[in-house]
């Protein structure tokens, strides 16, 4: 393991020590992070830790010899002065000349309302609720803003679909919980988790799918008889992409927005290589 700053050009090497930017603020070593504390003010040391990382981001082009050796032990706070951490060249993500950012189309999230529910009562009393026990064992409720649909089960668990951003998803889930609360059930808001995010993007050029399949056959599945798009499975991050002839790409299977962006950045140079000539 060579820790010379010259090797740090390769951004993957940054992952060998816990880079402060790749972890959510709640997961920094010294903080005892609960969900509620995520946005609360951190301790003095944590603030310093963040400042150090910001400094390191700003001084990217510096390639001189390090003034102090940064500590590479995982879990330790950054050393004395912020500037010393800056010497490790923190390479930005490979610049994709696409300028295209995938837009989110759908977010599926689940939340536990924490109490058993009487679906019949909910269906009778609530507006915009449908319940057909012979077809499906849950109440299907819809709200207009954000435009979402929720499946509410008798165990108290709920699935919320249709939101176009993470904030909308949690907002909508809270609105449904409020509805259930107003109906008289002791609803809580436990374990909200985003289960799936779907994004779409357009590369603006036609793609030679068959050639792509020949090259990357371990990752691709392209059967025009079955489906007109090529199904590309990226291993890290674990995302499935549907790539179409027209250049439109659908990305799904992500738990975070960053995974979608990462996956698209990975696939864009590959797709550029299989651009259709005319």
């Amino acid at each position: 393991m060579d820790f010379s700053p010259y090797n740090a050009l390769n951004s993957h090497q940054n992952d060998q020590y816990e880079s402060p930017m790749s972890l959510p603020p709640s997961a920094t070593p010294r903080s005892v992070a609960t969900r509620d504390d995520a946005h609360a003010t951190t301790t003095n040391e944590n603030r310093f830790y963040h400042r150090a990382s910001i400094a390191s981001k700003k001084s990217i082009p510096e390639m001189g010899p390090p003034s102090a050796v940064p500590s590479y032990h995982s879990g330790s706070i950054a050393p004395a002065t912020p500037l010393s951490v800056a010497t490790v060249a923190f390479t930005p993500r490979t610049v994709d000349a696409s300028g295209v950012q995938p837009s989110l189309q759908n977010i599926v999230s689940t939340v536990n309302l924490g109490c058993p529910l009487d679906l019949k009562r909910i269906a009778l009393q609530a507006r915009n609720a449908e319940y057909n026990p012979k077809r499906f064992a849950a109440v299907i409720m819809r709200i207009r803003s954000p435009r979402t649909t929720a499946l509410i089960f008798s165990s108290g668990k709920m699935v919320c679909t249709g939101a176009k951003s993470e904030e909308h998803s949690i907002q909508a889930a809270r609105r449904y919980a409020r509805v259930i609360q107003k109906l008289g059930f002791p609803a809580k808001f436990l374990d909200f988790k985003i289960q799936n995010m779907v994004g779409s993007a357009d590369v603006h050029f036609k793609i030679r799918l068959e050639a792509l399949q020949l090259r990357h056959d371990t990752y691709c599945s392209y059967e025009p008889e079955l489906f007109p798009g090529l199904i590309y499975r990226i291993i890290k991050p674990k995302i499935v992409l549907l790539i179409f002839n027209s250049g439109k790409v659908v990305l799904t299977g992500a738990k975070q927005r960053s995974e979608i962006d990462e996956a698209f950045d990975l696939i864009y140079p590959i797709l550029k290589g299989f651009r259709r000539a005319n």
Partner: protein
Amino acid sequence: MTRNMQTLSCRFHPESTLIEDWRAGDTICSECGLVVGDRTIDVSSEWRTFANDTDAKDMCRVGGPDNFLFDNNTFDTMIAKGKGKPAVDEFGQQKYKTTSVQTSSGDRALQDGYNIIRQMANRISLENRIVKQACLLYKKCHDAKCARGYEKEAIAATCIYISCRQGGMPRTIKEICGIAPGVSKVKIGRCFSKIKQELPNFILHEAVDVKNLISRFCGRLELKNHRLIVKVSTHISERAKEICDIQSRAPESVVGAVIYMACAIIGEQKPIKDLGLATGTAESTIRQVYKELSLKVSQLLPTGPEFSACSLRNLPKC
């Protein structure tokens, strides 16, 4: 190895030929009768003569080769049909019979699957090697348990589809649905994707080969200039793959439109309805693909002396 082998020769007659006597296992000089080498080992099969099995050419005690299609964990006992007096009881029936063959349940499941495959394959008279490939693939799926949850007919149909494709004579999924009653295209598609994912070392390099489809579908149409139309169609389809925007179309749709164009060019125009029946696609699909092809007709046509009969005059508009 030739260097280490001792070349036998008689001490007194080094040039004389040596005779091999199998009964005694000796090698004898033909001139003087000196035994030069002894204890020759006969590597042919057993010498024991089984009194009644006179029709067995190779009297081998070991038995036949393993059948890869079955698990070969079970050994069965079979009693042959007796001929002498002690073998027959007072009513003339055999005294000792082979009782019901006990196949293990795993083998029975495999046997069922193979029967289903053979029945389906018979409906379209598939080649023997394709059927055997399909059976082997079925066994692999069964062992790897990768198509759990799908019925036997679905897995059998998928195995036939895959082995047809691997054998260079692809059958469209719709055709496979035709020979497999009760299995829908969606089911075969899902089973196929599952097998592709889960079966280790399974990569289907062969994309659906259009040439084979063209010749088969043309055969169904009963054309007069069959060979010429096949040639023209093959050429058009290859060119169309490069220049036209028909890439994501199912192969049978492309073939349908290509044959339609080829027939029209040669002068033997067939109605789209016939094309639809022959390829198993909808008429509107063929029309759509044909519209795409007709945008670039001039580049698609083959050039050459044998294609002089082609003319763009008769091309229909739709």
